[in-house]
């Protein structure tokens, strides 16, 4: 299975890449003007590149004969002949085959639209709103992807996410607000040892290389809850830009400065 940004094929002349599981042509040389197409254009201009299909010509002959004969099909043959020759002169006017190109473009556009529409209709007709995600129950919730139904209030959800500062930046969204996400973030920001969380986790028997394993969920949560040193909380909050909280950051007493003096990479200290 292709992975994100898996370059599939790149040469000096053309290249394709699979990005986000979608194959995208990122470079193909344009060569629509060639000796062949140039000569074809001459034929398009002069009306010499295309001709009516031979079997259409044969059909016209047959219709002409039938129309002039006194048979049961004569009247209909005459009518069909008229329709056919009229359409022919419109589609491929003598000396102006370029107009046929426009007819082709418009016909193809119509066919493509029809195909796209039918494919979507066929796909959707046996689906219902909940098939497209949690919180999607009707046309309204389809338009906001079910977010309002799922979160209750989008503004409040935005404030909730923003309130954690940069703590979950760089963390997978499915770990947003989770103890595992917090621990990953602390270590990513070189706060794992300084904050003491790594020591707590190790002493609890948590495998640091397997933090996402559900068997460690409770221990990780308990470990985070057990770190209540005000200085540690203050510095971690500062590092994440959680500057002003509703509850308030506990006051540092100055009795424990090990965090400051022991981790130069934490706060940019110089000694």
């Amino acid at each position, binding site marked *: 299975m292709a992975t994100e940004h898996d370059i599939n094929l790149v040469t000096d002349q053309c290249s394709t890449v699979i990005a986000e599981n979608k194959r995208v042509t990122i470079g193909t040389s344009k060569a629509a003007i060639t000796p062949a197409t140039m000569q074809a254009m001459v034929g398009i201009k002069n009306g010499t590149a295309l001709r009516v299909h031979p079997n259409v010509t*044969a059909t016209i002959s047959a219709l002409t004969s039938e129309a002039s004969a006194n048979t049961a099909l004569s009247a209909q043959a005459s009518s069909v002949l008229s329709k056919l020759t009229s359409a022919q002169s419109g589609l491929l006017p003598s000396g102006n085959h370029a107009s046929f190109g426009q007819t082709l473009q418009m016909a193809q556009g119509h066919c493509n639209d029809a195909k796209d529409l039918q494919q979507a209709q066929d796909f959707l007709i046996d689906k219902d709103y909940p098939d497209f995600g949690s919180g999607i129950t009707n046309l309204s919730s389809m338009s906001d992807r079910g977010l309002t139904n799922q979160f209750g209030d989008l503004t409040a959800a935005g404030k909730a996410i923003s309130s954690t500062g940069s703590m979950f930046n760089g963390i997978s969204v499915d770990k947003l607000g989770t103890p595992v996400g917090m621990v990953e973030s602390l270590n990513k920001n070189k706060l794992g040892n300084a904050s003491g969380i790594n020591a707590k986790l190790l002493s609890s028997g948590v495998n640091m290389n397997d933090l996402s394993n559900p068997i460690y969920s409770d221990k990780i949560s308990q470990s985070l809850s057990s770190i209540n040193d005000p200085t540690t909380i203050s510095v971690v909050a500062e590092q994440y830009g959680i500057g002003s909280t509703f509850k308030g950051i506990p006051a540092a007493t100055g009795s424990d400065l090990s965090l400051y003096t022991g981790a130069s990479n934490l706060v940019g200290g110089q000694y």
Partner: protein
Amino acid sequence: MATFGTTQQVGTFNPGTTQEEDQAALNDFLNSGGINNSFGELSSGSDKIQNLSELGDPTKLVPPSDLSGLTTNLTGIGSKFKDMGAGTVIDASAAENTFGKLETVQTPITDSSYSSMGGMIDSAKSQMSPMVGTGTGSGGLPTVRDFIHPVAGGSVYDDIAANGLNATNLAELDSLLDNATDLRSKAGIDLSSPPPQTLGTTMNFGTSLHKWGADMSEGGIGNSLREMADTSTSEGEALAASLAEGRNNAVLSANGIGPIQTNPFAGLPSQEPSDPNQGAKLFGGSPSSEPVSTSSASGFSQQGGSFGSGQIQGQTGTGLEGLNQTLSGDYDTSGMAADQAKLDDFTSSGGLDNAFNQLNR
């Protein structure tokens, strides 16, 4: 107040102070509000953030009024976004702005009219169908040939040509012609007023041949045009060849082989023939500096002036002539015999002439 770093640089101790002085500075810092001051509304008490875990809990971080209406927690929010295809959080601070841009529209009329999505789609399908028309394609959809069979032919024409007219194929042809007229009307194709033949319409047709040639499916344009190409003329042969080029280009391109370059100047800015060097640059500029010899070379010019100009000492002429004279000039080349030999080889084989010819062209 004593110096003890700042709130932005907590821990920046002055290496020249004693521990007692540091302690005094720290006491000053704490007495003046310390970290509390930097965080604003802080005070001691049991209602403060109690542990590290609470730093990830919005209910401890923002007033309840800000979270009014929120029916889930951060984990629920993350889970929903994961389901929607989100990956990694880039900047959580952008959440309010992003969410503020999302719009929710109430749709009570639709909700009361259709009990399910399928019902609404079914209704829309029946409404749109008359605009689509019918044809001989998959699912009854029209193909390009359904529009142009009066000139491109098709199975009914093949039947008439092979077996002659009869009531069945005549009726079928009659029906197909009516349908073609209907389809062209639906697509907005007015055969009574074709566009004038211009360079644009001619080029548009010609340069589309590669694209159309890549699709030789039954009912497609490429297939129809191939059958209409008048191969009794050079132009008809060229049209058939163009379609083949397009198809072959598509096959080869999928294997990393691009088309033949027939217009290397496509997209390049035009330039005046009288000033062939304009717009063509070999090098970018850099600050001038003395050349550094790797042997015992001497005699390089101390004068200013650009290389190849008449200002260089010992050189006359400019441009290519100047360069050639520079290379063959009367320089002290002691210690550079090997270099000179290589240089001679280079110049005698065309060297710079060859390179500059490209620019002069």
